[in-house]
C-alpha cells in the first residue's frame, strides 16, 4: 500500500452567521489560498478534488456545483462530491490516492447552517416513510439518547456539563472557535433545558464555516511537509438507521471503526460529538483513557460547521503531528442520527 499523509489543513473561523451565499464560495476562496499557499503549490498541482456539503442545508439545488467556482476549475479538474460530512470525501480521496493514479488531493467541506432552521433540516436525514413525517428535531432525538445513558448510569447532567466546560476552556487556545471561555459546570446546571435533559451547553452551536485538507502520497508528501501526518488506519462503519432497534447508549459502529483503524495508543483524539453525552459515549466506544487528550481544539461544542466539522476534526488532529506535539493521533467524524455512522482516521508522525 502507498503511504498517504495529511500535509495541509485550513479552516474558516466558526461563526454564528456569515453574509455569504449558501454555496460556500466566499468561505472557500480564502481557505484554498491559505492551504495551497502554505504548501507553496497552486491549483494545478492538485490531482483530485472532493467535497462534502448538503443541498438541504443550502436550500438550493446543486450548491456543490456552484462551489466549484471557488477552485477556478480551468483547465478542467477531476472532482467528486459526497452529500455527507467531508470526512467521507477525505475517505474517497484517500482511496483514489491508494489507486496510484494521482499524488495529491484537496478535500473541502462547507455549510451555512444559519440560512435555514437546522433542527428541522436535520429531519431530512431520517427514515422518510415513518420518521421524517413527524419532524423530529435533532435536539429532541439527542435528548432521548442522553436520558437513556443517564438512567443507565453511564453519565449524568453534571458530567455532561463538565464536558461543555472543558470544551470552552480548551477553545481559549483556538482563535477560530465560536464559543470559548472559563465556565463553571455547576453554574451551567442552573440554566433551563432546551430539550430536557439537554441544556443549551449540551448542544453544539449553530455555525457557518468551511474546512479543507490536502492529502499527498509518498515522496510528494515528504516534499510538501516537514512532518507529514501519515494515515495508518482509516475506517468507517454504520449501524441500522432504525434507532428504535439499536442500543442507543453505545455505538457498535464507532467501536468497530476504532478497532479496525487501530485507535490503541493515540495521544490526542479529536471527536465529532455534537452533544456532550456523545463525547462521553465515544471516549468509551473508542477506548480512550484519561491519558488521551480529547478535543484540544474545543471540538464541535465550540463550533460546528455542518459537513465540514468532521473533516476539521481530522485536520485538527493532524496539526498535532505537523507541529511535533504528538506522534499518534485520531480524528473522528459522525454522520446520521445519534452516532449512526462513524469514521476513524488514525495518523502517525515518523522521525
Amino acid at each position, binding site marked *: 500500500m502507498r503511504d498517504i499523509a495529511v500535509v495541509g489543513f485550513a479552516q474558516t473561523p466558526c461563526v454564528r452567521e456569515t*453574509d*455569504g*451565499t*449558501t*454555496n460556500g*464560495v*466566499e468561505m472557500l*476562496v480564502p481557505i*484554498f489560498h491559505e492551504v495551497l499557499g502554505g504548501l507553496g503549490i497552486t*491549483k494545478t498541482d492538485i490531482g483530485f478534488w472532493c467535497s462534502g456539503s448538503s443541498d*438541504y442545508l443550502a*436550500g*438550493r439545488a446543486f450548491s456543490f456545483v456552484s462551489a*466549484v*467556482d*471557488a*477552485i*477556478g*476549475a*480551468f483547465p478542467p479538474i477531476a472532482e467528486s462530491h459526497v452529500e455527507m460530512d467531508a470526512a467521507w470525501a477525505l475517505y474517497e480521496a484517500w482511496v483514489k490516492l491508494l489507486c496510484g493514479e494521482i499524488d495529491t488531493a484537496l478535500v473541502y467541506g462547507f455549510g451555512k447552517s*444559519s*440560512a*435555514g*432552521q437546522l*433542527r*428541522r*433540516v436535520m429531519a*431530512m436525514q431520517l427514515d*422518510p*416513510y*415513518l*420518521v*421524517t*413525517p*413527524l*419532524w*423530529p*428535531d435533532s*435536539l*429532541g*432525538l439527542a*435528548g*432521548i*439518547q*442522553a*436520558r*437513556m445513558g443517564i*438512567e443507565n448510569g453511564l453519565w449524568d447532567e453534571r458530567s455532561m456539563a463538565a464536558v461543555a466546560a472543558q470544551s470552552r476552556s480548551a477553545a481559549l487556545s483556538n482563535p477560530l472557535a465560536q464559543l470559548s471561555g472559563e465556565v463553571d459546570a455547576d453554574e451551567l446546571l442552573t440554566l433551563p*433545558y*432546551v*430539550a*430536557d*435533559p*439537554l441544556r443549551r451547553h449540551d448542544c453544539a452551536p449553530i455555525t457557518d464555516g468551511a474546512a479543507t485538507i490536502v492529502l499527498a502520497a509518498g515522496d510528494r508528501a515528504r516534499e510538501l511537509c516537514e512532518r507529514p501526518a501519515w494515515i495508518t488506519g482509516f475506517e468507517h462503519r454504520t449501524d*441500522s438507521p*432504525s*434507532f*428504535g*432497534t439499536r442500543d*442507543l447508549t453505545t455505538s457498535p459502529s464507532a467501536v468497530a471503526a476504532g478497532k479496525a483503524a487501530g485507535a490503541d495508543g493515540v495521544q490526542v483524539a479529536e471527536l465529532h460529538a455534537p452533544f456532550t453525552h456523545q463525547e462521553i459515549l465515544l471516549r468509551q466506544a473508542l477506548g480512550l483513557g484519561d491519558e488521551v487528550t480529547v478535543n484540544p481544539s474545543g471540538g464541535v461544542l465550540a463550533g460546528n460547521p455542518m459537513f465540514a466539522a468532521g473533516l476539521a476534526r481530522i485536520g485538527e488532529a493532524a496539526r498535532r503531528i505537523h507541529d511535533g506535539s504528538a506522534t499518534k493521533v485520531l480524528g473522528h467524524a459522525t454522520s446520521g442520527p445519534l452516532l449512526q455512522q462513524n469514521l476513524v482516521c488514525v495518523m502517525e508522525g515518523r522521525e
Partner: protein
Amino acid sequence: MTRPLSAPLDVGFDYTRSLGPTLGRFLSDLRRRKVTGIRGSDGRVHVPPLEYDPVTAERLSEFVDVTATGVVRGWSWIPEPLEGQPLDRPFAWALIQLDGADTSLLHAVDAGSPDQMSTGTRVRARWRDERVGAITDIECFEISDEPADPPVEAEAVTMVTTPVNLHYTHSASPTEDPFLRGLMEGRLIAQRCPVCEKVYFPPRPACPVDGVPTTDQIELSDRGTITTYCVVNVPFLGQRIPPPYVSAYVLLDGADIPFLHLLLGVAPEDVRMGMRVEAVWKPREEWGPTMQNIDHFRPSGEPDAPFDSYSQHL
C-alpha cells in the same frame, strides 16, 4: 459596507413514495387502527416493521399483531414545538415499546408537563379521525393504562405522500449585491476578474477560471448581440406569452458571458445568430432587484455582428 441583499426563500415539495409489501401492510393497518410488527431473524418483533433484518440482512416476512399500548423506554421534553411536529403545545418525544414488540417506535406523547413523564410510563395511541395510511394516523400517544380505540375496516394503501416545507434566508453574494441594487436603478453592473479580465454579467462570487473574487465593477450598456437562440413551440405551466416565441442568449457589449432572455419584435424565422438587439425596459415604477426589469429585447436595427466577435462566447 452594508450587508448583501437577502430575502426569505420557502422550499416546498410533496414527496410521494410507493410503500412495498412491508411498510404498505404497516401503514394500511394504522389506517385500520391496528399496529403490526414483523419477526426478525433472532425472533425479536420489530415495530415499526423492518424489511430486512438489521443483523443478518435476511428478508423478513412474518407479520405479528401487537397492541396500540405500550411503555416509554426513553424520552425528551420539547418546550417549544417546531413546525410540522405532532403537537403544537409542549410535548415529549419518546421511544415507545408497544406490548408484544421487542423494539421501540418514535412518536410524541401528549403528557402536558415533563413531571408526568418517566421511563416506564404506560401510554396508548390516540388515533386520528381522518386516517390516510401514514405514521401521523397516530396523532400522538397519551398517558393511560387503558386500551386504545378498537380497529375498524379501511382500504389498504400502497403510497404515502409526505409534504416537506423548509424555510431559508437566501443571501446574495457580495458581487451579486451591486448587480441587484443596480437593476433597481435601471443600471447593468458587471464584474471583471482581476486576473483574466473576463467580464461577468450576471456576476459570480468568484471567477470560475481563476478562483478569485471578481472585485472590479463595471457598468454595461443595454445593447448586445444574439449568440444563439431557440424557438419555443411547447406550451408549459406558467408560460407568459403564447408560443411560438424566441428565447435568446444575449451578449451585452463588453461582457464575456451571455444570458438568456426573451426576444420580441421579430418573427421567429427572421432571428439570426449575430443579430443586434436592445433592451426594452418595463415602466420605472415596476422596477425591482431583478432582471425582469427588462421586459424583453428587440432588434436594434444595427447591422449583424460578425461571427468572430462572439464566436468565443457561445
